[in-house]
């Protein structure tokens, strides 16, 4: 009896590793701390009312942001651990198995639980404000998306202490990730967590597509939309068509693992390569999902801080749409070395290279937006300027990879690792940080401290080059990715050492960001104008933070850079006064159901991981019931009276 329990426990909990015990203890401590603080300050009700049940896009955005930063930290710690293991040859800081788990969770978390929520944070916070809408098209669905993401992230993270983490890489190729070679529940965690967050992402894609297509303020034609909104539209289109493929790939692999199917097994006709094919059918578009919104942010930031209109707006739009569509025609470049034949490789190599053309156009247009402008070096602009050379190199190495015969030499080497960190960090992370600095005042009414921000910037940026430039070299020297250790004699030691130093510098940069946020919350400059940067787009016409209904009156848009136009008119002494009377505003009700629904999804996922089918079935029923209950719910919104609105606006001093 006792023996059985012990046996169970040792399979259920990950035992025997001091680092994991440490993690267990710290997780318990953190949970305990949170519970204590909430109880002590009697904040449970507040938490439920203001956050867990909210359907307000701005709050959902903030929650995405917090989650993304936490995941950046988690993924970053993973990175630091890996780099420490690789700092010298034959290190025994991490065991092979542990290293494998760490790079798998690092890649998975960084892409799906850091980059994705970070772009969702920016989308949520900004898009409705930029297009003059009161919320997204489907606020309730939006809350579901967030909570699905959140609990999926929890599901994946919990694997570290319960059951064991996935260890087959973020790409999770079978047969290695199949049941034959990987019995453990780790892979199940991967599959179910991604599946759940994938559903949420798909819903977000639809939501923002509809929002942008149909909820723009009168007068805002498509060609008057801010470029960030355009980039989100393009990213949404990619999400809509790419994520279903991931859903299928994961489902089939899960069927292989749990139901004994033979899609990707190596016997009874299965073909593991089909998984690789499906994975990248999603995987390649995915990387543009995470980089296009960053492009959008850079467009906003560059125009604002150069105090100039965006150069070549039409080209900017055309290139984003082109990237979105072409991104579906390139996926084979991730497996040129599979031997699918020269015809296949040629087609997909050329399609891949073509993406460099619209991307290049964007780079030139950014440069010429600055040209003959007046560049103000605030933090967002600093990141935007650092992005250009960084991404240009990363993109150029991407083009080098896309040359199929050359890729036979680069594939799966550190050259590839360097390429994608350069575009993911130099593109996505820099973009999201620029966006965070840019819109922080809009979110919280606080401007982040410049001086600490510069320290963070320089550490992170220099650290980046120190960390990743040597990796190109390592790739050329024949070092392959996913090696937990290497021996002397290959000449890799020096470059790995330098690279690790760079990683530490990036870590310090991140610490500065944390300090900066803390410091600014306590002592930071408050933004009372609502327009600290002299912005060009509509979100800056609102007070910071914006009232929950966003716009007391829906603005009429007369041109591109809507807010700038109004300010210009005012500067010329033509006071554009809002004289329309307030009207009652229709607002969606808060609801606890998205949260509950997602908890049920979590329970479902967790029980599927351990194949506890009865519990999974119960959770599934719960999910169905909450969907049915929603279907019967008719009073899903309420009306704000003119009185209330006037009251709020007066408090902001805006009547």
């Amino acid at each position, binding site marked *: 009896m006792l023996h059985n329990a012990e046996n169970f426990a040792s399979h259920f909990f990950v035992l025997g590793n001091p680092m994991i015990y440490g993690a267990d203890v710290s997780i318990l401590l953190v949970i305990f701390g949170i519970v204590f603080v909430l109880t002590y300050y009697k904040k449970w009700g507040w938490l439920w009312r203001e956050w867990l049940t909210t359907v307000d896009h701005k709050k959902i955005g903030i929650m995405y942001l917090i989650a993304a930063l936490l995941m950046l930290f988690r993924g970053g710690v993973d990175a630091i651990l890996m780099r420490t293991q690789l700092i010298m040859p034959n290190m025994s800081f991490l065991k092979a198995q542990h290293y494998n788990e760490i790079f798998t969770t690092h890649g998975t978390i960084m892409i799906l639980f850091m980059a994705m929520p970070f772009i969702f944070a920016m989308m949520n916070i900004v898009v409705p404000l930029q297009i003059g809408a009161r919320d997204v098209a489907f606020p309730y669905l939006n809350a579901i998306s967030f909570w699905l993401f959140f609990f999926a992230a929890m599901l994946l993270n919990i694997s570290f202490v319960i059951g064991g983490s996935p260890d087959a890489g973020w790409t999770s190729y079978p047969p290695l990730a199949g049941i034959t070679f990987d019995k453990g529940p780790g892979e199940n965690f991967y599959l179910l967590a991604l599946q759940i967050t994938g559903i949420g992402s798909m819903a977000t894609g639809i939501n923002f597509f509809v929002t942008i297509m149909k909820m723009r303020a009168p007068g805002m034609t498509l060609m008057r939309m801010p470029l960030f909104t355009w980039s989100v539209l393009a990213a949404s289109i990619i999400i809509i068509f790419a994520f279903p493929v991931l859903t299928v790939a994961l489902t089939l692999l899960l069927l292989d693992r749990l139901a004994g199917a033979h899609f990707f097994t190596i016997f009874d006709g299965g073909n593991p390569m089909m998984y690789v094919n499906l994975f990248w059918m999603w995987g390649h578009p995915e990387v543009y999902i995470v980089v296009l919104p960053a492009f959008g942010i850079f467009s906003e930031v560059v125009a604002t801080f150069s105090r100039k209109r965006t150069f070549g707006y039409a080209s900017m739009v055309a290139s984003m749409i082109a990237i979105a569509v072409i991104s579906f025609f390139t996926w084979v470049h991730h497996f040129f070395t599979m031997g699918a034949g020269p015809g296949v490789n040629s087609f997909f190599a050329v399609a891949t290279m073509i993406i460099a053309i619209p991307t290049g*156009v964007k780079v030139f247009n950014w440069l010429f937006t600055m040209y003959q402008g007046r560049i103000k070096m605030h933090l967002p602009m600093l990141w935007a*300027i650092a992005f250009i050379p960084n991404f240009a190199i990363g993109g150029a190495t991407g083009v080098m990879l896309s040359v199929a015969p050359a890729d036979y030499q680069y594939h799966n080497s550190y050259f590839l690792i360097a390429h994608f960190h350069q575009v993911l960090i130099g593109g996505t992370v820099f973009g999201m940080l620029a966006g965070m600095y840019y819109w922080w005042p809009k979110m919280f009414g606080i401007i982040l401290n410049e001086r600490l921000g510069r320290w963070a910037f320089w550490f992170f940026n220099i650290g980046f080059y120190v960390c990743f430039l040597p990796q190109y070299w390592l790739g050329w020297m024949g070092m392959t990715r996913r090696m937990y250790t290497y021996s002397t004699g290959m000449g890799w030691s020096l470059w790995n050492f330098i690279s690790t130093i760079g990683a530490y510098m990036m870590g310090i940069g991140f610490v500065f960001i944390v300090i900066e946020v803390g410091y600014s919350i306590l002592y930071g400059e408050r933004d009372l104008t609502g327009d600290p940067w002299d912005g060009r787009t509509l979100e800056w016409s609102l007070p910071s933070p914006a009232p929950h209904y966003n716009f007391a009156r829906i603005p009429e848009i007369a041109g591109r850079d809507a807010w700038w136009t109004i300010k210009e008119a005012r500067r010329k002494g033509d006071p554009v006064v809002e004289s329309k009377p307030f009207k009652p505003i229709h607002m969606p009700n808060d609801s606890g159901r998205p949260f509950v629904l997602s908890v049920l999804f979590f329970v479902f996922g967790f029980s599927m991981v351990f194949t506890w089918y009865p519990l999974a079935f119960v959770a599934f029923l719960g999910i169905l019931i909450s969907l049915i209950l929603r279907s019967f719910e008719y009073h899903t919104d309420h009306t704000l009276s003119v009185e209330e609105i006037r009251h709020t606006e007066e408090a902001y001093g805006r009547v």
Partner: protein
Amino acid sequence: MKRNQARTFALLTALAGTSLLLPGCGEQVLVFNPVGPVGMIEKQIMVLTIIMVSIVVIPVMILLWIIVARYRDKPNNRAPYRPEWSENRILEIIWWSIPIIIIGILATFTVQKTFALVRPPNKVVNPLTIQVTSLDWKWLFQYPGQKIATVNYCEIPSNRPIEFVLTSNAPMNSFWVPQLGGQEYTMPGMAMKLWLEADKPGVYYGSGANFSGEGFAHMHFNVIARPAGEFNHWVQKIQSTAPPLSLQRYAILARRTIVQPMSFSTNQPGLFEKIVSQDGGMYMRRDLTRGKINSQAGTD
């Protein structure tokens, strides 16, 4: 404006120069020190790409530097400020077309070389066939023509094209000998072909390039290229001294272990074909039967 152009040009030439020199430095930069025609083609196209992408990327950086320096918002900056200037057809045509031209050139070369690399690098000399199987976590090399086998090392004759036929009896991996040429996946149930050739005798580092689990980091091996005579000598030595590769031995090899290099005097006939088609492996079976994997091709 003139001065800028001159500076750009100077930098460009400097860069092109470095990229050409780059292969020269560092013996250990394997992919730029190829020893065979395949690696050579790949190196050439890599260098070409580096130059082509530098043609735009370097000027972009210089431009960025100049613009940021010139148009900073400082007091008394007398550079022009035109906040409404946002369209210029000619400029836009220029930067749509430059990348188009560069990509056009690259695409042409890419297609050409992609097709070239699936053919034997040298049509004059009779190729040698080596069957490669990636196992957990080791490499098995079988010489169907010589009826010998090795583990975790492989000897080849120099100046003779080698037809590596690749499969896996474990999670997929990738067979990569950087100095001979690029890699190709080894996949269970499939037999893929990779042409390589060494022009000079030597010992070349090879490794598995696609992650295959715990022992993956230890899956490296040496490829030893020798002149034909020495190679034949080595074959005879193995044939006469090494133990045979029986099915039991193979079964032991296939277990999840990390082992030292080994040699075997016979190779179990049909073992490779069996590995490929064992579990109802579907692909390339038609090639096996059609004789595309020609076990006889390598006999002397």
